[in-house]
């Protein structure tokens, strides 16, 4: 598997560190406990397209949001995490 980093071009997956589902959002500090349990522990874990964080540890140190099919490992898109959060 190779990931196309917006800054470093296409690099082997061994350069990246995985951080999981990129759709979970930290709740407000005063949110009910159930929202925090949901955020920390529960995941959709889909078989199919999945938005996920990868950190380019052995490259530019960018946090990336990769959209990837968990059934085939095909990568549809790669954006920087800041780009995604500003969108």
């Amino acid at each position, binding site marked *: 598997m190779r990931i196309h980093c917006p800054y470093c071009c296409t690099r082997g997956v061994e350069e990246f560190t995985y951080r999981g589902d990129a759709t979970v959002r930290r709740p407000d500090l005063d949110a009910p406990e159930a929202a925090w349990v949901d955020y920390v522990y529960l995941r959709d*874990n889909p078989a199919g397209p999945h938005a996920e964080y990868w950190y380019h540890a052995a490259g530019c140190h960018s946090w990336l949001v990769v959209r990837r099919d*968990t059934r085939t490992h095909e990568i549809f898109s790669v954006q920087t995490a800041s780009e995604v959060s500003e969108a």
Partner: protein
Amino acid sequence: MSSDRYSFLSVLREALRGQTGWKPAWRKATPQDSYDVVIVGGGGHGLATAYYLARRYGIRRVAVVEKSWLGNGNIGRNTTIVRSNYLLAGNVPFYECSMKLWEGLEQDINYNAMVSQRGVLNLFHNDGQRNAYTRRGNAMRLHGVDAQLLDASAVRRKLPFLDFDNARFPIQGGLLQQRGGTVRHDAVAWGYARAADRLGVDIIENCEVTGMRITDGRVEGVETTRGFIGAKKVGLACAGNSSRVAALAGLRLPIESHVLQAFVTEGLKPFIDCVVTFGAGHFYISQSDKGGLVFGGDIDGYNSYAQRGNMPVVEDVCEGGMALMPRIGRIRLLRQWGGLMDMSMDGSPIIDRTPVDQLYLNAGWCYGGFKATPASGLCFAHLLARDEPHPVATAYRLDRFARGAVIDEKGMGAQPNLH
């Protein structure tokens, strides 16, 4: 007369009459309209659950539905290791229960599963690791589990060809559980299937669950590719795909699916007579009775349902192997494959009721499910039959995450790919 029970006499009798009296190990069952219990997932855990339901709890109107063929999932994709060398109180009694069931399994189910208590040796390479393994060994012995701390010379007598004087990771000793070892994994599926079938359990292959019928918060059966099957109780035992199946009932689980790779080499004369694990990387190896070296390492580390992994982990596993035993460097790989792991948020499994009435969950086995097969089946059967947890599985609750009562052997936190 057919040779239904396997024995020396049945082998002899069949030898004399041209092997004409053997029956299929299990029937090709067609689904009935309804059952007392439907188990989703015809892997080791599901089949063991069905067997213990029928055998120990007297519930025989049971179906096991499997989307593929029996044994195509993780029961046939693991590295066959069994052990009970755990540290935490929530885990040790459960895995020791499993170890004891392995010890009597073949007599119990009348099937040769090649249970081999050849020992599991975890090596350590520095003082900190020695302390950690001493603590683990003590925890095991306090729970009545066997454990022996070996020094470097004792390991050298056992496995003289390891790289003891490796410049970075010299071998200082190991923690040995002699009762651990290996079990022929396919035979576990076939043996449980045959034994459950003989007690009246229907094993329905090529039957994928596509939906759950739930009325007023209570499950009434499963929709499948072979039609609706009614059930008083439904048990999910489909680790690897637990999130997908639970989603059919509207549940979200504290689980990510990951891929774990395993490897077998060409056959060699016997030279590794136990299971060995490398303490300075993630690498474990044993030698099968056919002579192939069976080994593996870490999960790939990203969500996957692909049942195949990528090259960096292959490289990492092989580097671990070379650091431990350089003599395997020129052996050729014969097979390599991947299996899907339910990586839970604390690295420990779940055997519990769910928020849906009469729907039960057996999930989150991470990459330690094979060794747990008998106890998982027994405890899940207990839960399904009695509606209360088995005494050795009281900690495996689904709500433990919300309660902060996680069972985190590695102390990694809610990061599934690190467990």
